[in-house]
């Protein structure tokens, strides 16, 4: 800036005090630069945010699932917000197994009671928490893994009858979506 002062002396002589002209120039320089940076960041954000889920994608849709046709021991897959949702009718034995697990045995500790609203109905987002594959285990003929819940075919994660991870690379339990029972035989997800 010292060199600039020498160069600027001649130019700013007509405007009075050379020192004053210099500080005005510095102010304009800084203010212009700062505004430019803010504007660039603002534009960059509009570009980045345009890639986030759009309003139509975000619009919270709900689905109603009719529970009547799901026999005990069976599960179904349905779609909610582009994600698979598992609804499983648990047997008394599966409920007992899920409830009688010591929390210290779990990778991601959670009681079965905290994961269901009615013990016979297990509602889960059917996406493996490892790398997003869809675990198998809704049909009794599927490979349900050693804990009788779900088994992910991609990298071998196994879940119990409460959808909690018991073995493999998945770090978390299968997520529970928001839902409530609108009647004895209908569950609304979302």
């Amino acid at each position, binding site marked *: 800036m010292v060199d600039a002062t020498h160069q600027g002396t001649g130019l700013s002589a007509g405007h009075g005090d050379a020192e004053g002209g210099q500080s005005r120039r510095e102010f304009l320089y800084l203010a212009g630069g700062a505004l430019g940076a803010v504007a660039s960041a603002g534009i960059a954000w509009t570009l980045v945010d345009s890639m986030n889920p759009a309003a139509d994608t975000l619009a919270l849709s709900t689905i109603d699932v009719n529970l009547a046709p799901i026999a005990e021991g069976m599960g179904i897959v349905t779609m909610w917000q*582009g994600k698979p949702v598992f609804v499983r009718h648990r047997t008394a034995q599966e409920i007992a197994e899920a409830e009688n697990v010591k929390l210290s045995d779990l990778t991601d500790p959670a009681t079965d009671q905290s994961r269901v609203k009615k013990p016979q109905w297990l509602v889960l987002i059917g996406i493996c928490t490892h790398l*997003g594959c869809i675990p198998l285990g809704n049909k009794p003929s599927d490979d349900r893994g050693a804990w009788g819940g779900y088994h992910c075919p991609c990298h071998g994660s196994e879940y119990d009858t409460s959808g909690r991870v018991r073995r493999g690379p998945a770090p978390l339990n299968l997520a529970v979506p928001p839902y409530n029972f609108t009647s004895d035989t209908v569950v609304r997800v979302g």
Partner: protein
Amino acid sequence: MAHTTAPSAFQNPVIRWVDERLPIFTMLSREYGVFPTPRNFNYLWNFGALAMFMLVAMIVTGIFLAMQYTPNADLAFDSVDRITRDVNYGWMLRTLHSNGSSMFFAVVYIHLFRGMYYGSYKRPRELLWLFGAVIYLLMMATAFLGYTLPWGQMSFWGATVITNFFTALPVIGKAITTWLWGGFAVANPTLNRFFALHYLLPFVIAAVVFLHVWALHVTGSNNPLGIEPKSAKDTVPFHPYYTSKDMFGLSIFLIIYAVIVFFIPDYLGDPDNYIKANPLLTPVSIEPEWYFLPFYAILRSVPDKLAGVSLMFGAVVMLFLMPWLDTSKVRSAKFRPWYQWCFWFFVLDTLLLGLVGSQHPEGIWILLGRVGTIYYFGFFLILLPLLGWFEKTLPLPASISESVLGGYLSNSKIAAKAMEKA
């Protein structure tokens, strides 16, 4: 101020007129005509030119495929089928492009191993090497994006698994993944942006290739002996010597490429990708294309999500660090008896990891994957730094010409005689 045009050495008046205003012909002649190039290249030095050829081939076939392809989740799969069945020569463009990615990676892997064996990453070529590593990273991104476009089962689930890598990041992982998808799962918005980026990245690669070649023309090429040319006797002009050698290599390469495209176009593909993407059904086994298998094996070698993903990215980071991890002053493995062994074990190790990546992670494969991963990182982080200290290297020849011509031209008397005759 009076501007004068620089005098041009070209006789043709049109070329001369252009050259005096923009010396592009002078530049081409300097960089690709008379450019002094070490006289001792072997055929491994063809692979840079082959990679350049493949980049152009991929861009050209890709542009024509894009004219027929529809990047919409409902229509993409059928539009690829239409390209194969109905579009004139569409079957050929598609197989040239899909197998082209395999050929491109094969060529680049040989090019990369060549650089590792002959120490092409060492001073003063570190930046040249870094540009190469950036190109490789961009190629991986481009290949992954492109594999999503046919919207088959493997496209969809490959995209799902790879984008889920980012969920391993603490705190921001989930938000980044949602941002990448433009939704809550891989779906139409994802396909749209993947198509846009798949079209963009090859041109970014072309720009970095330009920097890569520019840096090469500043330092000059390395050569099998790893010693710098000392005099004109050590070099030959790029044209016609290496233009013709590159053309010969390209001919052999094109024969192999053509055999794959015309006789076994689906050999390297996965049959599951002929099934339309189904977000509710994961294929029994999700397996990446062969060129990603070693990284996939490293990912699966640790049973922890964050550690697995970090190791996999770390495996690529090793390439970027290589110029500083290797402490030996000698470039070529010809004069490094221990490094030579370590290098060939490393090549075998990447092949082993590739095999492990193609198998279900059970039994012996888990152990082999872990041993392979340990050697992969051990090679870069332990062997490369230590060898520089402990290895006794062989004496380097005095010059390239002395080594390859048996001292014939280095004897100045005979050289002078030869000059007289000519």
